[in-house]
């Protein structure tokens, strides 16, 4: 059994409520942070722990916190990004639904560390029932003196507000989220200035993912030095992975970042293997926007090493032969899945969710969707594949926010690794409507690069 830090008590009945949470060691970390540690000590612990943002980019949280500007007389804000809209990712929902107090406690400690007296939870509108759970938890915590004025007699004030989004993927981008929180149209802001300097209402703001904030609680509990013993290298601690697709046991798993991808897919503790005894064809290891990998590159890196469930190992080889851990939306595809159709689905999603502010993303996502639609429905041309490659290349990196990149990467990776399948679709339009390309050679072991001759 892998060690757990976040979900270790999730199975306890009634953990959703304050009394059960408290009697199982809840708010001990908050007590420790507020009463015995200072704000700087908390930031120091988080820095020491090597905690990396769990929202997708993997930016070191302690470093992010240390960037926040601290001008006199200007309030600072902590915003919790619960706008989890990435297709394939549903870990934050689980966390908020079952142990909301973990998030509240994390927000309390983080706000204390940052000196913020207001914290916001921006939650996506589709999670319609969760704000009620959170608000109930906030009311309970306030009732017991963990929120409000003069928390537990320490003189620290904190209010937590829950704000429901209106169902836009783009509002998961931190500056679009801030705009939306301010009541405006959710358009990403042009950076710089970064939120750490000018965020919510022009004040210094830190935006963190739900899981990141929750992970602060065990860090304060066990200390950064102890936390770093979880995981390998720079991927410290545990990570929530929401596994879905063609696997026997889809769900949210907390993994210690020291297991291999193969173990995660096939062990009974986690996904339990591919459904129906089929073979693995491809996998998107970090939510819809990260590059898709064929089976042979997923389990072993291009250098022939075992691929681990860590930030570094999944990114080994860059985008040419690697992918990203992203937000942990682990989508597994078996041999009967069609990569072209899958890419079309994602392209359609990004086309629908583009905010329309900057031209490459507004126009390019729709174009890619239409070209992919043609290929999938037997009307494609060979030149369309190169066209797609050119479009994604011109979107990537030229947009205001990462949505353009997120739209370009899946298409790029699909063409890079599955070009045969695209070509088969073009050459056999009628057959492509009735059957799938199948596994083909995508699971064959790759030839290892020759060791450099001396």
């Amino acid at each position: 059994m892998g060690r757990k830090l976040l979900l270790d008590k999730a199975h306890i009945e009634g953990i959703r409520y304050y009394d059960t949470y408290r009697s199982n060691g809840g708010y001990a970390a908050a007590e420790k942070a507020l009463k015995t540690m200072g704000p700087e000590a908390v930031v120091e612990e988080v820095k020491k722990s090597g905690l990396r943002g769990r929202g997708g980019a993997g930016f070191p949280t302690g470093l992010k916190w240390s960037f926040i500007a601290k001008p006199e007389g200007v309030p600072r804000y902590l915003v919790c990004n619960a706008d989890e809209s990435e297709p394939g990712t549903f870990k934050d929902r689980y966390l908020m639904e079952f142990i909301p107090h973990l998030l509240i406690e994390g927000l309390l400690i983080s706000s204390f560390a940052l000196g913020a007296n207001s914290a916001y939870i921006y939650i996506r509108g589709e999670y319609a029932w969760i704000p009620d759970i959170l608000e109930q938890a906030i009311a309970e915590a306030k009732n017991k003196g963990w929120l409000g004025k003069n928390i537990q007699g320490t003189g620290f004030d904190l209010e937590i507000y829950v704000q429901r989004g209106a169902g836009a993927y783009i509002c998961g981008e931190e500056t679009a989220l801030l705009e939306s929180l301010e009541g405006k149209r959710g358009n990403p802001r042009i950076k710089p200035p970064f939120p750490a300097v000018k965020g919510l209402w022009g004040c210094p703001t830190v935006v963190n993912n739900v899981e990141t904030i929750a992970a602060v609680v065990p860090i304060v509990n066990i200390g950064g030095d102890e936390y770093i013993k979880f995981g390998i290298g720079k991927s410290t601690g545990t990570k929530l992975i929401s596994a879905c697709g063609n696997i026997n046991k889809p769900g949210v798993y907390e993994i210690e970042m020291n297991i291999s991808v193969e173990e995660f897919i096939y062990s009974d503790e986690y996904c339990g293997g591919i459904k129906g005894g089929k073979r693995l064809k491809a996998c998107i290891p970090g939510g819809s926007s990260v590059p898709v990998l064929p089976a042979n590159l997923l389990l072993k890196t291009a250098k022939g090493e075992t691929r681990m469930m860590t930030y570094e190992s999944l990114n080994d080889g860059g985008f040419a032969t690697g992918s990203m851990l992203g937000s942990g939306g682990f989508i597994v595809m078996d041999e009967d899945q069609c990569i072209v159709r899958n890419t079309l689905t994602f392209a359609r999603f990004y086309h629908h969710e583009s905010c329309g502010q900057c031209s490459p993303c507004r126009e390019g996502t729709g174009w890619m969707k239409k070209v992919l639609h043609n290929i999938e429905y037997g009307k494609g041309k060979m030149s369309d594949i190169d066209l797609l490659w050119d479009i994604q290349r011109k979107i990537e990196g030229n947009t205001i926010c990462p949505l353009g990149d997120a739209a370009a990467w899946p298409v790029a990776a699909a063409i890079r690794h599955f070009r045969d399948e695209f070509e088969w679709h073009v050459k056999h339009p009628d057959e492509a409507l009735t059957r799938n390309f199948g596994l083909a050679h995508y699971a064959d072991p790759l030839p290892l690069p020759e060791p450099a001759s001396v």
Partner: protein
Amino acid sequence: MAEEKKLFKVKIDNISVEVEPGTTILNAARQIGGDVVPPAMCYYSKLQGSGGKCRTCLVKVTKGSDADPRPMPKLVASCRTTVMDGMEVGNITSPEVQDARKGVVEFLLLNHPLDCPVCDQAGECDLQNLSYEHGAEATRYEFKRRTFDKIDIGDKIQLHMTRCILCYRCVFTADQLTEKREHGILGRGDASEISTYIHQSLDNNFIGNVIDVCPVGALTDKTFRFKNRVWFLKPVDAHRHCEDPKCCGKTVLWMRGDEVFRVTARKDKYGEVEDFICDTCRFDKKEKSDWIIEGPRKIDRHSVISQGHYVNTVKPKDPLVEVLDGRQPKLLFDIHTTSEVNRPEIDLSKIDGPAHSDDFNK
């Protein structure tokens, strides 16, 4: 003596310029002028918060600053990126930038109807200029271009949503010049459109400026609609005493003969107005007698508007007058009556192919 402000040294396409801290790369390039100025479709120096959206002004920062010489990983929007001391920027010298810009132009034109022949903006359209300079000769887009339901935004301003490139300039204009903004961006992604939420007409005394700031033909002057092509008109600087304290009253009249076809604000060489004018000046004062005319407006000689308008050109001297010493040249003889070569009975149009001496020897 006041202490001299420290200026930042910036190199754009290997041309050095010293600018004040806080200047954007685009404005630094405009201080150099010429070809190194990146095109800007959404940035408007008179409007706060504009820019960063169209991505045509992308440039490559090859050296961040003297203190931190690392290059920036991505291309940056020059209109929203401020310079650092010692920064080196590649615009026309960077193939990466040229390639990206070509891509952006293609994206901008993807759903553009290209109805320039019937568009009132033709001849003074930023998108036209941009696509001439940076665009490809043909589109690779094989699908139906998007269309929108027509909406009426009043009797003075015509909205053509299909032509819009969503630069947000008109939104900023309404926010910053008028008391109340009634239009905005509705919808999302490529379905987003300039619209009013409940169909309302835009009637504010400064709302007509959205026509001037619009880089394309999405917002045009309804009182000038289909009246004339801009290059057939003669722009003249004029002014009048305007009662509105916010209006400068300095305009350009677009005239033909004594007729004033339309009134616009004065635009500089980057297509930005010098001063905003009120709607009374723009829409209601269409008589020559309303205005004090200053003289012809100088239009860039590369513009189609200045075709046939020879301002400040020197006519070559005609030597024949001097040679003839005051005498008038007169027709000495008519070649057709005297030439022996002339054969009126041979109809050249009846000859199959180029005329040959054989044809005349028949």
